[in-house]
């Protein structure tokens, strides 16, 4: 059991500074609260070794640790019961290597994605991830949540791009897995294991990714659509076509499909034209955006679910279930009380549900009941404490849960890392 509550603040500070170095620890302030819970101290170790030593100390002294990057997603999932130590990675923000000839880069965990991509752009390359808050969200946090954005349609999620990882284990050992090459099957794929682990297994200290060249031209076709069913049928038509969009997004209300093409100019133009005709064939009106209009439209789209104060649920369904799900949602929630964006081609949606906690909980529960295990999921990302007290943030995990617990137990035997917050309470 973790229990740092009995320790005095001075004691904790002194302990942390002994292992992480002078001037690395401070008492937590109001801004450090995690989903309403105030931690005791914040430690910002300057190196992988210092992170490892901090963890060894926390393990020895049974202190609960929450790992923090940019702090943009710390309130996702189950709220913590108590937090002794916030371990911040923000002092580790270097791009350690950009091997542009090999299309790979190794980056420290605390580096914000946008800063990394600015650096990679010097050689016309990028790490093709476009989750929300790229200027603050760090590489470590993006890996830990496996977060992504519209371009996941073409490039995948962090899980698809990660090649190797450096980690600090809960017991204070530093270890690595994978490597710096794009193809590698030596040993277990711990880089992917840590991806999406929500800080429950180890601290990611650095990671290597596969990169892509920056596209020369971008065009987006914005298509207005009559309703949810038409939306599904048009999305399916795009999937069945030979067009190669980098994003195939939906948003509602009102229902729209946003289809992005990034390539050489001739191809982006030609594909945009074909997309317009495909939409027209289904009776939908489309227009092509580029340059400033296009960027502004995507910015607005990306921000949409996060604006306002509602709960955010990430829903994953089969593309063929999209129409039903959205129709049901509009009826159950009332169309004015929710806001949906998401990957129409992948069946991954972000739904903002407004209203009070009671209504939100009802909706989430009903939504989960509609989705059989193995055919989708509904995970609560952001939500009020009242809501999270009413429903489990993660929902059913399936028959792999015991095995996940066994893995957690091996990696973090004293249970100090994000205790109780991860999927299935690991």
């Amino acid at each position, binding site marked *: 059991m973790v229990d740092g509550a009995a320790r005095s603040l001075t004691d904790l500070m002194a302990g942390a500074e002994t292992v992480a170095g002078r001037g690395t620890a401070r008492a937590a302030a109001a801004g450090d609260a995690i989903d309403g819970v105030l931690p005791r101290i914040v430690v910002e170790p300057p190196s992988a070794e210092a992170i490892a030593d901090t963890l060894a100390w926390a393990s020895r002294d049974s202190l609960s640790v929450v790992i923090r990057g940019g702090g943009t997603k710390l309130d996702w999932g189950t709220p913590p019961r108590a937090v002794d130590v916030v371990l911040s990675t923000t002092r580790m923000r270097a791009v350690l290597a950009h*091997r542009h000839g090999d299309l790979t880069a190794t980056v420290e965990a605390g580096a914000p994605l946008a800063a990394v991509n600015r650096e990679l752009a010097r050689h016309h390359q990028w790490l093709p991830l476009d989750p929300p808050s790229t200027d603050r969200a760090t590489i470590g946090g993006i890996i830990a949540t496996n977060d992504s954005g519209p371009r996941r349609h073409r490039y995948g999620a962090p899980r698809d791009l990660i090649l190797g990882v450096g980690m600090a284990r809960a017991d204070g050992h530093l270890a690595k897995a994978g490597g710096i090459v794009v193809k590698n*099957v030596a040993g277990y794929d711990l880089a992917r294991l840590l991806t999406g682990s929500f800080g429950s297994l180890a601290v990611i200290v650095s990671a290597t990714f596969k990169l892509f060249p920056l596209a020369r031209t971008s065009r987006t076709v914005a298509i207005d659509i009559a309703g949810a069913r038409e939306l599904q049928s048009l999305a399916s038509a795009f999937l069945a076509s030979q067009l190669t969009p980098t994003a195939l997004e939906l948003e509602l209300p009102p229902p729209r499909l946003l289809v992005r093409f990034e390539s050489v100019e001739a191809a982006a133009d030609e594909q945009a034209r074909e997309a317009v005709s495909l939409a027209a064939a289904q009776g939908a009106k489309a227009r092509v955006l580029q340059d400033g209009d296009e960027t502004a439209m995507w910015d607005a789209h990306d921000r949409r679910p996060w604006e306002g104060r509602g709960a955010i649920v990430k829903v994953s369904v089969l593309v063929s279930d999209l129409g039903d799900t959205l129709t049901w949602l509009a009826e159950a929630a009332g169309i004015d009380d929710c806001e949906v964006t998401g990957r129409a081609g992948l069946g991954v949606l972000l739904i903002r549900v407004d209203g009070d906690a009671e209504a939100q909980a009802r909706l989430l529960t009903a939504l989960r009941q509609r989705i059989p295990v193995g055919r989708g999921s509904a995970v609560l990302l952001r939500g009020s404490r009242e809501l999270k007290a009413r429903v489990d943030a993660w929902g059913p995990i399936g028959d792999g849960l015991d095995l996940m617990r066994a893995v957690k137990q091996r990696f973090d035997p004293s249970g100090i890392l994000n205790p109780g917050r991860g999927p299935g309470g690991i």
Partner: protein
Amino acid sequence: MNATFLGELDQIVGREGVLRDPTDLLTYESDALARLRRRPGVVVLPKTAADVQAVVRHCHQNAVPFVARGHGTGLSGGALPAPDGVLIVLTRLNRILDVDIPNQRVTVEPGVVNLDVTQRVAPFGYYYAPDPSSQLVCSIGGNVAENSGGAHCLKYGFTVHHVLGLEAVLPNGEMVHLGGATLDTPGLDLLSVLVGSEGTLAVVTKVTLRLVRIPEAVRTLLAAFPSTEDAGNAVSEIIAAGIVPAAVEMMDRLTITAAEAAVHPGFPSAEAVLIVELDGAKAEVAELFGLVERICRSARATEIQIARDGEERARIWKGRKAAFAAMGRVSPNYYVQDGVIPRTKLPEVLRRIRALEVESGLRIGNVFHAGDGNLHPLVCYDERIEGQGALAERVASEILTYCIEAGGSITGEHGVGADKVQAMAHLFTADDLETMQLVRCAFDPTNICNPGKIFPTPRLCGEVPGPYRRHPIERAGLAERF
């Protein structure tokens, strides 16, 4: 093996599904790495996932080790039987269970042959992207276990990028479902760890795969170069131009000669050939293909063949995919190595391999996935000559040191298996390996699932590691841990 134990196996899979006659067992002594052989205690050929589960549970109850085997085309001894263990052969679990075109996925049993998936969905305009050269004969279960790749993985990714869901029997006989039909199933991503775990964590009984739409345009060229270095430069230029080809493959003179002798693809006689394929939207492919052609010419290509149709493309690929097997035409025996380097280190590593060739007196052919730096040096030898087999083995492992020194890996697609366990200790620290085995201990605490593979020193799972304390010398910065 104990008669009661065997009797129970008969009960589970039926008499005709259990092989114990020494002559029957012969086939199963090795995978395609024939150098490593061991007779299994018994071979079982279950027909259903439930049978697999019952067999594994039976093994677990009796503390008998077991090894899963697909079609036995592995090149690292991954399916090498455990001494006195059960070999679970999955070839009879060979049904395609569900084809879901609207959602672009299929669900198959592990014994289904890789190419059968593509053949099944091609009429709908789809294919299964990972295309190992052995795709005519290897199983999806084996692909999952090895995280197999192929020539087209440069753009489309490896098996791990195409597996959405797995059903697997754990070493204690329990069945789990990881991932699923949809993305982002909540919980730890154990699916990704199971992929590429070489049969050491569980026996996979069902796989849901992602399908890829057949592209609008595909164009392929074959360019001949006066040296592998020139060909390598062309690859660098292509990447620097911001092009992501569907495939970039290189073959050197020896492997060209072998392929010509075996399947007559009509390759030019040259020091090196490059196969470059682009696919995607018509306009994109048209523009970039022209660029690739110009790059090859300015990198001193002496001849460029452009495939005019599917048939000519197939001919070019036939030459490439036959390369391993064709080595038999130029050498009585050969050793297939599999290493990876950062692509930009290609010239340097090739120079070292050439020097090694001279020094050892053994010919070394080179065929590689040049786009992703995955080398397959083919070390030629003659086992009738005393000591040459051992020399070839030393030469092959020397090449791995070059890969490690260049920042690469000891295997890009064939796996560690039984063959490269020692090399793992050169690539990874003791802490790295110990961390990987934390996973192993969570899945298989009694070490009965394909034991002896991947790790040089198996970890006993009882112990839970204590907190690490840095040594005072390290603390003072006088020593590095790695």
